[in-house]
């Protein structure tokens, strides 16, 4: 064998050995299907996997704007809707797609609502490539699970079937007022939505509709992220794709008080703001009669228990923050 052929054989053998090892490690780190641990990086969002099958009628998908603005347990109390926030910090659309796919493997929601801030979150070719690599060799997706495995080894394993007590919502009561002087200043301009985001949106919409869920876009109130150019761009895209779009930033009836309803100068809402935004979403959905009211049904009694716990925690947190 000449030197070149020897080098080539060595290289091929090396890569084959590496792939085999990656395959074996993938087996070791991939969590059992249907566990919260299935997405170690966003436990709250993956709490959906701990929900009883086919019990969630409404899914909210998005980044931190979603888990700061939508309170599923308030929707339960006011309308009897069973909903869940599939949201994680700085969520990108490719991850949203993955979360929706995981959720829809156990749930048959009637409505999926996607928060629009993600449409403007750029991600590059690398992110998509890594995402695809993770579906072939799961070690690229679950590599960080070594921490969970080590916890188990050390006898501190987390409960992988743990539900999210607030159904994906995160309670914040801190008040940090926003300067809303330039908030939603009228404009005819259109913000640019990255082409890669548009393609993912189309894919997600089709996936949801194929599974019988109505797909809706919604924008939560935010002085930092919302603007008329964005509103115009989303309105045009929603029209083009035949999607309903609800922009809470243009809905004057919500009456967000930017001196009290935000926790970080208008970027995200706190509980006070989230309660207003949730009320508006609930009323809108109730008007459309898209979702059933499960209150009083024995199978959903757990929601009443969780709501009681939630209200107690909210009261305590508001008191601590000096808001009650």
């Amino acid at each position, binding site marked *: 064998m000449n*030197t070149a052929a020897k080098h080539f054989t060595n290289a091929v053998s090396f890569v084959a050995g590496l792939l085999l090892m990656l395959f074996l490690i993938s087996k070791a780190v991939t969590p059992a299907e249907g566990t919260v641990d299935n997405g170690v990086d966003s436990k709250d969002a993956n709490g959906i996997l701990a929900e009883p099958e086919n019990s969630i009628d409404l899914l909210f998908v998005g980044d931190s704007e979603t888990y700061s603005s939508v309170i599923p347990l308030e929707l339960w109390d006011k309308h009897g809707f069973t909903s869940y926030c599939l949201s994680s910090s700085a969520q990108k659309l490719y991850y949203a797609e993955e979360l929706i796919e995981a959720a829809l493997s156990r749930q048959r929601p009637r409505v999926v609502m996607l928060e629009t801030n993600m449409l403007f979150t*750029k991600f*590059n070719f690398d992110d998509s490539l890594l995402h695809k690599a993770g579906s072939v060799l799961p070690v690229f*997706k679950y590599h960080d699970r070594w921490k969970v495995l080590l916890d188990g080894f050390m006898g501190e394993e987390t409960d992988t079937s743990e539900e999210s007590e607030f159904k994906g919502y995160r309670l914040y009561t801190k008040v940090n007022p926003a300067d809303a002087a330039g908030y939603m200043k009228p404009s005819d301009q259109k913000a640019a939505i*990255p082409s890669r985001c548009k393609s993912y949106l189309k894919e997600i919409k089709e996936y949801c509709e194929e599974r019988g869920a109505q797909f809706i876009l919604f924008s939560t109130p935010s002085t930092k992220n919302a603007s008329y150019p964005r509103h115009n761009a989303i309105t045009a895209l929603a029209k083009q794709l035949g999607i309903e779009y609800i922009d809470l930033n243009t809905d004057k009836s919500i009456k967000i008080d930017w001196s009290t309803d935000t926790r970080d100068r208008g970027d995200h809402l706190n509980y006070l703001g989230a309660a207003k935004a949730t009320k508006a979403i609930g009323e809108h959905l109730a008007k459309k009669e898209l979702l059933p009211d499960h209150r009083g049904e024995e199978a959903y009694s757990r929601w009443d228990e969780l709501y009681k716990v939630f209200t107690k925690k909210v009261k305590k947190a508001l008191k601590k923050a000096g808001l009650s």
Partner: protein
Amino acid sequence: MQLSTLLLGGGGKSLTSLFSLVYLFVFLPGCIIVYTALPKKCKKYFLLLASYAFFWLISSSLIIYLILTTFSAHYFGIWLDRIGTQMRSHLAELPKEERKAAKAVCVSKQRRVLALAVILHIGLLLVLKYSPFFTTNINTLLSKLGVSVQLEVPAAIMPIGISFFTLQAVSYVIDVCRGVVKAEDDLFKLALFISFFPAIIEGPICRYGQTADQLWDCDKIQYKNLTFGIQRILWGMLKKVVVADRLNNFVTTIFDTDKDYSYGGAIIAIAAVLYTVQLYMDFSGSMDAVIGTAEIFGITMPENFRMPFFSRTISEFWQRWHISLGAWFKDYIFYPVTTSKKMKKLTSSARKKLGSHYGPLIAGAVALFCVWFCNGLWHGSAWSFIFFGMYHFVLILTGNILEPLVQAVNKKLHINSGWFVYRLLQIIRTGVLVIIGELFFRARGLKAGMMLFGRIFTDQRFEEVNEKVFDKLRLDTYDLIIVGITLLIVFTVSILNERGVCIRESLAKRHIALRWAVLYGLILFIIVFGAYGGTYAPVDPMYAQF
């Protein structure tokens, strides 16, 4: 869909890191395959084409500035060379007594041309990089003076790597003027020297004499170069992906996201340490990728780091950290200032009055001030960067002034400066001073830097240093363990390198099973313990923004 849209749909970030998947699995292998397939005479042109394609992919139409810089450097080089040639032939024809005056005329002409070249190149850099900074400061000044006129602040248009390729171009022109290198007739050769793709984002800042011939004298890729180059890239990846990216969430939260600066001094001090580690791991890791990539093509690039945290003084630190930038400032600012006629005269008179140590320090201080003012400004257009430069200027100057006193005290107290404990204390002191400097460097402005620094002493809140807060800052115990293990590996290898042991050479001599085991271990360590995907936010190459 345009290629640039495909690769750069996320705002151009796919290729700005030499650790991006697009670079490692598409661009670089593509270059290696095409380079190998081409005949020898075409290889250099292909490298040039690849470099321009790379730059176009990351900077799009801003490539025009790279082209302009190259044309300008080429033209000025030839002009300066021609003046020199004409001068030599002219002087040869003149009688000896007239030569001095004629030479002075030619040298003066050469200097004027050189000044024009430097003004044009640095001027372009100043306009592109510093216009918003200058305009904002002029507006502030005007408003303080009660003038109602306000200038429009221009949008920053800065091609990635302009601070690096501009300095390379300027060094080439000055070297031609000094006669260190001959002006290059071949525009393509000069273009490749200025634009070679791995080094265009973050350097190192090469001299024409260091890399131009190597780049132009392309040979086929050797198996050893290929494997060694890949190993060096993997080494850089370990630093960047496992450590630098892992620390990013913590550092970003403290310096950027936590706009109210709600954390106490203890956490801020930890963040300053971690940022310094992150910066070193990011930048030196990127340099490993640059040098490794070049090595694949048989090109030896200059090293940019040499165990900087083993430095005993700040001055030594800057001889070990970003070596190519320090050397550039030394050769093209420090020496010209100290050797200028006025400074020589000043040194001469000061030496008589102040002695042989303090006398030359005056001219040295002037030159040092120029170097550190430029160094600070080079890093960014903000007062915090100028402060960063002045901070190091003061530290180095103070070190120089106090040196005789320290030596005298040591002698008096019978302290041997070679003692391990003494050296260790010097290393720790230098490390602390560097970390303080980096805190100001990283803070969002000078005011924020002052506030953060002040809090370290006034509001420590040591109770915050607990697992819960670290978890909140997304740096749990496991992360710290991985960072610790990786730093230990890097530290051990650095010491071996410092002692002249080449790990790759000695590994290459071992049995294939051991070689593969080490490589598999390295690759799997990066894949399993790397901070990517999920909620990790990989840091963009930190020096690409400068």
